[in-house]
């Protein structure tokens, strides 16, 4: 009478790798602590080397996890962790999303290394927390049961609360952490209540059962789904659940803001995609009104508020809300085209947003963020390379042709038009025009403004260089040649094909 042999550990391979990595980082940190500099003149290794060892370990584990997920995507098919009671699955969607998540976590680690040293908060827990959170995200994207979703969500969020408050000496960091914790807790409660209602209605929590029995004419189904969407919407900061985002992004260490804004959105949108495809309806007919409403609100509020920001992190936070609006247009459209567009948009968003935050990180001075927009004035004269890179990311965010942002937006709008949602697409175009104003303001300041008093950091670390290179090359490569396969591992498939394959499995007849 053994349950264990029937478990397919392959299905949670990437998750296990990420969590194992987190534990290794913690152990390594503890083990190496006694070599740390305590004022003794003779020491075998420097602090920097210890930190590097920790970061390298984290990145190695994340890379292997990403690679494994990539291989799993290539193999295809769905593997359930426990076939008798499916809760976690490794299918193309999960594999693809895990690849993205692990890779963006890897980039976040690379980014954090020197930034934490600059801020003077360099401790190994950072990477352990980040990896546990990534593990939660990986759990989320492979969850096919409400319970697993909730567990994944909590594992994702709890380390994030700690990460936001990682800069313990700084008041804003603490304040953001408390704010995020309270609001995040509220979101979890709403979500849990929605799940309880759904359970009360159907009597089961698995997606398969819910998909069969959910009926939106019954009030319990409707209320439960609504609360579920509200809870998840709070996590991704869609309007009207968005107020926390700018404050938290502003106060958190910039590397954490970068990781949060990318990872959480990717993971939660994967949950929403799976929820739409496997439970609600793959064509996306029902709930279309809800998504339309949320999309329109997020687009309008996000882009109009971003216009009046004077700090770059707040501006990126509000523009992130607008990006959520675009993603929700894709959900509203539904169908293979809509869901594919959502996934591709997530990739574009990951590259662009991580890149933009990386520029902010790479300019941070000792003990202080390079945050106010005014300080970017005249940057092209002092740091021409950084100014050019930032311009690239801003243009990609605005959806200028030649960058990945253009193709992502185009795919979203084409999907909307395909489903005859033209007003939504037109609204998206209009907010794109508005977004041109606030995105172009940054390059305009950098190239045309007078040099500001505040001096940026003049050296760039190898980790930051790596992130900027990867994101910049990605933005251009996927923007100019989106239809080329670049990784020999997956044959001739391009990114767009990846995105399509990861949803087509479910939707195709």
């Amino acid at each position, binding site marked *: 009478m053994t349950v264990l042999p029937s478990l397919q550990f392959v299905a949670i391979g990437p998750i296990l790798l990420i969590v194992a990595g987190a534990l290794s980082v913690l152990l390594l940190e503890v083990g190496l602590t006694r070599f740390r500099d305590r004022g003794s003149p003779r020491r075998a290794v420097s602090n920097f080397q210890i930190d590097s060892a920790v970061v390298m370990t984290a990145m190695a584990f994340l890379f292997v996890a990403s690679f494994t997920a990539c291989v799993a995507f290539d193999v295809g098919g769905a593997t359930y962790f426990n076939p008798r009671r499916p809760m976690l699955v490794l299918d193309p969607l999960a594999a693809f999303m895990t690849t993205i998540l692990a890779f963006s976590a890897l980039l976040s680690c690379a980014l954090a290394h020197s930034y934490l040293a600059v801020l003077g908060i360099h401790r190994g827990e950072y990477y352990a927390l980040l990896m546990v959170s990534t593990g939660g995200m990986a759990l989320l994207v492979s969850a096919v049961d409400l319970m697993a979703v909730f567990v994944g969500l909590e594992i994702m969020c709890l380390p994030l609360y700690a990460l936001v408050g990682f800069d313990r000496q700084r008041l804003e960091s603490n304040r953001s952490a408390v704010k995020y914790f309270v609001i995040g807790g509220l979101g979890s409660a709403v979500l849990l209540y929605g799940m309880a209602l759904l359970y009360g209605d159907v009597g089961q929590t698995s997606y398969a059962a819910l998909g069969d029995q959910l009926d939106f004419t019954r009030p319990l189904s409707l209320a439960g789904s609504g609360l579920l969407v509200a809870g998840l919407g709070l996590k991704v900061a869609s309007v009207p659940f968005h107020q926390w985002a700018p404050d938290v992004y502003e106060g958190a260490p910039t590397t954490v803001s970068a990781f949060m804004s990318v990872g959480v959105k990717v993971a939660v949108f994967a949950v929403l995609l799976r929820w739409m495809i496997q439970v609600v309806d793959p064509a996306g007919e029902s709930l279309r009104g809800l998504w339309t409403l949320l999309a329109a609100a997020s687009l309008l509020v996000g882009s109009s508020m971003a216009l009046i920001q004077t700090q770059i992190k707040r501006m990126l936070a509000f523009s992130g809300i607008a990006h959520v609006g675009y993603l929700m247009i894709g959900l509203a459209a539904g169908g293979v085209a809509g869901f594919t567009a959502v996934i591709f948009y997530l990739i574009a968003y990951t590259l662009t947003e991580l890149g933009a935050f990386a520029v902010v990180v790479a300019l941070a001075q000792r003990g202080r963020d390079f945050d106010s927009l005014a300080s970017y004035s005249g940057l092209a004269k002092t740091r021409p390379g950084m100014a050019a890179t930032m311009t690239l990311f801003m243009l990609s965010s605005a959806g200028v*042709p030649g960058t990945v942002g253009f193709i992502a937006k185009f*795919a979203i709008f*084409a999907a909307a*038009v395909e489903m005859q949602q*033209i007003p939504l697409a037109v609204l998206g175009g209009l907010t794109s025009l508005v977004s*041109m104003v606030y995105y172009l303001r940054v390059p*305009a300041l950098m190239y*045309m403004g007078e040099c500001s008093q505040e001096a940026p950091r003049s050296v760039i670390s190898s980790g930051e260089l790596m992130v900027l290179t990867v994101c910049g090359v990605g933005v251009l490569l996927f923007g100019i040649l989106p239809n080329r396969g670049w990784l020999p591992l997956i044959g001739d498939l391009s990114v*767009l094909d990846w995105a399509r394959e990861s949803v087509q499995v479910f939707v195709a007849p």
Partner: protein
Amino acid sequence: MEFVQDHLLSWIVFLPLGAGLVAIALNVLLSSLGLAGIPRRLCGLLGLVASTLSFALCVQLVVQFDATSIDHQFVEHARWLPELGVNYFVGVDGINLLLLLLTTFLVPVVILATWNEVHDGNLGYVFAILSFETCVLGGFASLNLVQFYAFWELASLPLFFLVGIWGAERGERSATRFALSAGLGSLLLWIAILLLASLQFEQFGRLDFDLVSLEPGGVALLDTTVPLMDPAGPGQSAFNWRTQVWLFAVFALAFAIRIPLVPFHRGLAHLQLAAPTAAAALVLGVTVKLGIYGFIRYAIPLAPAGALEFTPGLIVLALVGVVGGALVAMSQDDLRKCLTLIALSQLALMTLGVFTFNAQGLSGSVLQMLGHGLSAVALVLLVGMLRERRHTGLISESGGLATRMPVFVACFGLWVMSMLGVPLSSGFVGEFLILLGTFRVHPAAAAAALLGILLVFAFMLRLIGRVLFGNEARSENRSLVDLGLREKVVMGILILPVLGIGVYPEPLLRRIEPSVLNWLRTVDERSAGTSERRQGQRSTEGPREAMRLAGGRP
């Protein structure tokens, strides 16, 4: 060489950008090695060489162009985003052939003429001009609507930086203002794309934004049926906005903003005031033609019934532009703003030529785009040379230049004549054909246009009197130096094609004509059902016969 020959058009389009990128990469490499980077003089030389090479290839294109064919030639087609119907699709016919030639010709000339500006501006400046050239060329060569949109939107970026960084003191504001109005135009074009996409998806179940399909049975834009304006057909909702009328309205607004036609002209005037000379010259010479080209290539063929519906309104708007531009120009004190307004008047005239829907008007417009491009650029460059010497371009500050700068004055007079369309200059052929075409359709409109032309004439003569002759307004003018060798060379290069076209337009007209007639046929087919509205407006004879009748060809 064969590789270049096989992809001639792509080479022409991407050579400038490629050279710019290589230069930047080289610069980064050099500075990372601790060296000083590329010397400034070399940057300008690089821009000159790259754009001249592109021009040389374009000349080869014109020579190899088969004037008897009505098809698109030098076609290159590659799948880019097949699921979304976006392909890399370029080709040349008689309509965009001359525009490509004009653009590739003007860029090296402009670089040479503004050598001092280029020298101050360094690598970024050269890169901006080269990438701008690629964007405009790409726009002219595109046969895929989304690709056209992409180049069209990208073209405003280098301009934004050129004006903002190297422009006048408050160039940043003008640049932002221009970028916003360009963005508005892009948004409208984007809406038109969405409209077409929704129709296409309904009819074929997939998207394809190619203008024409290369294989039979394709689903390209011209195969898509856009409903005529009838809104209350059976089975349709009472209000159907996916009709030709709406489609054309959106297109027309987008292109009218880009040309710009009358209510939208202020942004361009501001931009011109702040722009550095090279940018100002290229905007007047080349960019504004993208709007007219958009009308010819996309708006009218895709929604001819809508075009017919709006024709009277657009003709009135164009006439207001023709006359108004001339009138407003009279009250200006800044030479460059004057020239911009005159140019706007002439752009309106070209738009008028397009909306005559006959061969004379259209070929006149196409030819006039070339001629006007040459003379407008030359005048802006001359004013730029004056500004370089006097640091002002005000009419009231100049006067009595004739005694100090005889060569400058001769050139200025010559170019004004060419712009006015004096016989034997390129302006004459184009203007004459436009007026002839207009007269065939709306004699009254032709009379009004003629009035506008006469106004410009009178004004320009007065301008010559005030700027070139008259009293010396300022003592600073006494120390002015005449054009140097480089500037004389520029003027010499520019004058050749103008005289050439004016004296012997036949080779160009011969290349334009088949495409123009084919265009008229396409428009006729697509507006089936409404074609009886235009009965009696068409004439089968081409522009060349018209020129012969008028004795325009010596």
